[in-house]
């Protein structure tokens, strides 16, 4: 269990958040009862509220899959793109208008299978996007196929005998690719996740928050994980902080969810550097 007593949050009633940041006419959402994605969507709204961002300057970009429906439910500039390509679309938006806060809402399959190339290159480029992965370790929209984050030996409709693949560590992958902010939250750890999303948005450069969601309908049912509450309880009971994890052996970390900021460093942000180039060329012409 992680201590949350030192995490500050302005107290905002959830229904106030909904009326302020959601599009109530497009609710209820399509997610299954017990899905963790709604919690994460709420975390995004709370983070925006805490930061006091101008909604007109916030852009949500999503791809395809369960996660990607989140964009349309929220009252920002929203674009629901093609499968895997949200980060590439977001790159164009940010490059065209660096004043916009561009947040990508994506899933594990969207971000790391079909969209894996865009994820690593946006991280390497250090463009100022905030990527929030609603990581439910399964393809939910298509009915429960294994994804790049499905644990080894877990079941899916396309892994009827247990998954032979190894799972991606998305925050670690992004770190390796050059992300200047990489963190992991969970649907259970809302306070920490809100904090990470805030940090990610404030961060000058590419940030990724890999948020462990829960999919009771497909992953839970196929793998006998119990109810949605049981799955959230699992997150609570099996999580350790990044600091705790550093003192643990690989064996002890088996089956644990490591929560916290994995990596944070300052590198020059891409669109800022490009603006500097434009200014330099303009100055050279004047001289």
């Amino acid at each position, binding site marked *: 269990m992680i201590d949350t007593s030192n995490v500050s949050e302005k107290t905002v009633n959830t229904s106030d958040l909904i009326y302020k940041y959601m599009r109530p006419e497009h609710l209820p959402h399509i997610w299954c009862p017990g899905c963790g994605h709604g919690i994460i969507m709420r975390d995004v709204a709370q983070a925006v509220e805490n930061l006091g961002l101008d909604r007109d300057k916030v852009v949500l970009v999503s791809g395809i899959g369960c996660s990607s429906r989140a964009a349309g439910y929220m009252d920002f*500039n929203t*674009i*629901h793109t*093609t499968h895997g390509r949200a980060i590439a679309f977001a790159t*164009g938006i940010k490059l*065209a208008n660096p004043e*916009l806060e561009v947040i990508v809402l994506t899933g594990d399959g969207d971000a790391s299978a079909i969209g894996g190339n865009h994820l690593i290159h946006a991280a390497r480029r250090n463009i100022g996007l905030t990527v929030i992965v609603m990581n439910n370790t399964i393809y939910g929209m298509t009915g429960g196929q294994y994804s790049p984050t499905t644990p080894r030996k877990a079941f899916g409709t396309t892994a009827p005998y247990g998954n032979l693949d190894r799972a991606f560590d998305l925050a670690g992958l992004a770190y390796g690719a050059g992300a200047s902010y990489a963190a992991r939250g969970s649907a259970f750890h809302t306070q920490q996740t809100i904090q990470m999303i805030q940090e990610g948005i404030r961060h000058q450069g590419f940030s990724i928050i890999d948020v462990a969601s829960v999919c009771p309908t497909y992953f839970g049912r196929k793998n006998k994980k119990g109810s949605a509450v049981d799955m959230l309880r699992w997150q609570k009971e099996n999580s350790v902080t990044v600091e705790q994890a550093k003192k643990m052996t690989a064996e002890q970390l088996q089956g644990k969810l490591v929560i916290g900021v994995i990596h944070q460093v300052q590198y020059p942000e891409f669109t800022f550097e*490009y603006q500097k*180039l434009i200014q330099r060329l303009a100055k050279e012409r004047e001289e």
Partner: protein
Amino acid sequence: MGKTVLMQGNEACVEGALAAGMRLYAGYPITPSTEIAEFSAVRLPQVGGKFIQMEDEIASIACAIGGSVAGVKSMTATSGPGFSLKQENLGYACLAEIPLVVVDVQRAGPSTGLPTSPSQGDIMMARWGTHGDHPVIAIAPSSVSEAYNLAIRCFNLAEKYRTPVLFMMDEIIGHLREGIEIPDHVEVIDRPTVDYPDAKRMPYQIKEGQLVPKMAAFGEGQRYNITGLIHDESGFPTNSTEEAEKLVTRLMHKISDNYDDIVQVDQVNMEDAEVAIVCYGGTMRAAITAMEKARAKGIKCGIFRPITIWPFPERELLAASEKLKKVVVAEHNYGQIVLEVERIIKNNCKLGFVGKVNGTVITPEEILAKVEED
């Protein structure tokens, strides 16, 4: 009078795009279109625009769509294999109605094919490459001067009709160098922007008698939704059969009902022609010589060159075919536009075909032989 400069076709495409207001280019290196990326990388930051080399072809078109959504005129360029890869997002831009210019400097295929050799093998992919029924505007230049002027036209049509426009260059024109006149002033059209208060709630609202919804850029305060799903005027997904039919029908009519504004055709010596060479893009160069040689031999030969490939200038061709004895289609492929020509001319006149798939250019003599054939 503008100034005359020596320029390569790919470079002229970039300069035309800049004159039309392109301020974002996203691309990936591929022969024979690479110079478009290289010139864009040099020129865009000089005019306050942005160039980005993306990680792949799919990301390049996605990035360009994103730029356009944020209100900046955007372009991507590629060649055959890359054009294949861009097809899904091309359909997205059609459905979501995002202005965009996609350049395909065609090379010989299929697959990796003959990367440095000329071809016009992507003409049907331009029409049907992305899945589902969708409108298309595709334009083919046949000189460096046209690479410049028609690049401007591509942007103007993309903005006016809120649609991707395909600039179907070929290796012949892309790598050709000739003197062109850069005009002092060019007509530039910008997308219809939002001027009504309800745009936030109804971003795809169409006023009576109109076919193109107005468009707000992200960040302007409208906070609307864009999706690749079938959507209603609110911009949100719908499963309504009526809305699906209404949307797809409007998208098709948006282009077809504006045929006169969109379709351009170059007709040379067609007044008295008995035989017409139908060609487009770089093939025009050989066709001119073939026509001249035919005329010298006393054959009343003309050229019918679609500048707008899609929609195909079928009204003009049908009218012309009624007065012709024969049409000879010349194109650098195994026979693509010839199928469209065959459909249009019905049995009004005879039909001959000159095609080539070996990576070399069609010669005037090859066209002339078909013109002379009984």
